[in-house]
């Protein structure tokens, strides 16, 4: 008895301490999720009247010719794919460069981190000013014109708009770079040293030592990047507000927002869409985890690799 009691008390105290987080999760995350799942089987009209319509929302999404779900999902996934690859490579390369010893290294590190402090809305407005038409004073286009090249419609062309979006994404990727930098500090110097002694060139040092060490973090960063890329919203809204040009920025969250809050009577559909996106994200994450897992079979050497499941 005397032994058990303190345990119980301690457990109680623990639960009470965790209570705010648990209650927050239940009320602000789990409850809305369940409600949206219920809503996804409902038709919710303008006045808030609800009635069950079974799977009709889901049917509409995939089968109705007027549904934009697939197009929206396509542009979102395309952006996600490009962004994950580019961002990971870019941040890794920048981190590797910033990890070398040179004068002004700390200043450069700060400079690379700086843009990620700027809110996305401001970033988007800034980039819009940079990329706009030369007659409107767009910097890039005026520069192109000055150099005798043809200015481009960065904002109106449905391919080039992705260049703008990706440029914005890379510009604000300082946070990821910092994480990579921190991880690179973890690379065991003795291993690098040993590799050098064994005659490994820079590429093989990276391939055999550095890469192996940072792989778990790399993998984690890719998953997080994937999730945030699928949720892209602010950039699109700040640039065009309706998915222009030619629906190329009509990303999935923009569509869900449009259906839920701007259109009338589509809140049920919006909930269904949100759930499908949730599932899609989960599937992609699972696939990535699987790939990450197979990565790790030969991974007995790294410290972090073992900790990851």
């Amino acid at each position, binding site marked *: 008895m005397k032994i058990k009691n*303190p345990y119980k*008390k*301690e457990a*109680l*105290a623990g639960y*009470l*301490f965790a*209570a*705010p987080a648990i*209650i*927050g999760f239940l*009320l602000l995350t789990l409850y809305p999720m369940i409600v949206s799942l219920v809503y996804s089987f409902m038709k919710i*009209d*303008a*006045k*808030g009247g609800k009635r069950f319509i079974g799977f009709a929302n889901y049917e509409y999404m995939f089968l109705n010719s*007027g549904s*934009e779900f697939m197009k929206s999902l396509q542009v979102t996934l395309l952006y996600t794919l490009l962004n994950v690859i580019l961002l990971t490579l870019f941040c890794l390369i920048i981190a590797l460069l910033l990890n070398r010893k040179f004068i002004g290294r700390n200043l450069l590190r700060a400079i690379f981190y700086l843009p990620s402090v700027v809110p996305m809305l401001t970033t988007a407005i800034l980039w*819009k000013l940079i990329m*706009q*038409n*030369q*007659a*409107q*004073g767009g910097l890039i286009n005026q520069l192109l*014109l000055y150099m*005798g090249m*043809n*200015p481009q*419609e960065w*904002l*109106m*062309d*449905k391919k080039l*708009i992705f260049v703008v979006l990706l440029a914005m994404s890379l510009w604000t990727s300082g946070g990821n770079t910092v994480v990579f930098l921190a991880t690179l500090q973890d690379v065991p110097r003795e291993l690098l040293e040993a590799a050098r002694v064994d005659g490994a060139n820079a590429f093989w040092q990276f391939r055999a030592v550095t890469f192996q060490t940072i792989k778990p973090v790399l993998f984690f960063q890719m998953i997080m990047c994937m999730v945030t890329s699928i949720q892209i919203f602010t950039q699109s*809204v700040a*640039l*065009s*507000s*309706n*998915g*222009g*040009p*030619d*629906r190329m*920025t009509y990303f999935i969250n923009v569509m869900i927002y*449009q259906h839920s*809050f*701007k*259109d*009338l*009577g589509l809140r049920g559909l919006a909930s269904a869409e949100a759930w499908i996106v949730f599932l899609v994200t989960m599937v992609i994450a699972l696939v990535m985890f699987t790939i990450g897992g197979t990565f790790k079979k030969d991974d007995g050497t790294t410290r972090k690799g073992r900790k990851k499941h």
Partner: protein
Amino acid sequence: MKRKTLALILSLALALGALSGCGSSDAGQAAVTGNSAGTDSETPAPAAETAQQPQAEDGEDIELSLLFWSDGRQKELVEQACRNYEKMTGIKINEEVLPSDESFDTYIQTRKESGTLPDLSYINEADVMKYNEMGLLAPIDDLFESGAIPEKLDSVTVKDTNGKVVAVGLSNQLMLLYYNKDMFDEAGIPYPSTDVASAWTWDEFIEVCQKLTTDVNGKTAAQDGFDSSKIQTYGVGFNCLMAFHQFWPMYANGGGLVSADGKEFLWDKPETIEGLQNVVDLINKYHVASPAGYTFVSSIGGVDAAIGGGGYAMYINGSWDLGNIPNIEGTNVGVAVLPKMKEAVTMNCGAPLVVYNTSKHLEAAKDFYAYMIDPANSIELLQSGAWLPNQADYYTDQSLIGEWTKDLPKDAVETIMSYVSHEGSIAQWPAYYLPPYNKMNAEYTKYIDQALNGEKSVEEVYAECMPEIKRLYETGTVE
């Protein structure tokens, strides 16, 4: 032991803190389900509860809330108008301002969900029919019948499908042609007319645009050897080609979205298609206008950016831009009527003010409404050029005209008066009176950029989207 007690107390306090937080959100939820009349959270007003009748005789107990948007100066003016009204009537006004962007409608929706709609609010043109169909707007016919509101311009009066007036635009806005006088002088081209009757024909307009579009080598689009891929200055710019920015040429060409009474669908008519194609040709065929889409992504902004920046010789945008002309230094800006196609037509807009029928003091709210939409109380906005008056006598009564136009450019005043005095030269933006407008527009948005970027012809795009848009039109409802 003592430490554990302390831990317990602390954790309890934390948990309770969290719970009380939830408690208030529960109360909010109760308001959603139980209370549609709306106890305004901003004005918890014990006074409002004690005053049993909305029209308390002395008026002391009544509080009204007004939700509006503003970009700066307007905020002070609206607040001033509210204070004046408080002095006049003793009614307390709680005004709340939001930025004028997309968030406004979402915010009203949130307030609706939580049962705390304001008494009055600004509203987007395209959302009036939506809130009306949701059953939230109070008709204001009686204010017109009693003479509390004098005759307003038809083009800013919003009626529901039964002909009841549900809103009046705070201002009247027209699409106008702004131009850089210096560039016209330099090219030796006479200024465009301020008279609807002698507006440029479309061919004349194209010709002028060509003469004023120059590439990096200084060649104009009218000359041989013009390099359309290296344009330095465009003949004309559209702020964007969205909604009324795009619709006026359809009306100018004898087409349109729907007939003025909303009974006939015109959007798929050949005149409409040709009207829009004419504009698209300026961009993709003649290369005299910068690319523009059915989106704000590349919108130019104000006339100060377009003409003041020197990138455009002419600029087509709404009359609110008159307020930006004084910001332009070193360039002479002129204002003229839009070029015509078959007819000279411009399109109007102007955000309305509405009264919500959830108001606790509906009568008082309506009185305040009449006050707020009286141009006399927004005279500074009128004088700055940001607003045009919404009231008929402000265009006919010489002393009134003199007062609000005294600081405006002469050619701008002439242009506005010319539009107002020529019957049929102002097409009302169908967003005002066409309940299914929003969903038709949403469908249209999916397709139209392909025509604007020259990938397909307007006719091809319309062939794809118009059957569905017509079907949406025929539903006749917002939802």
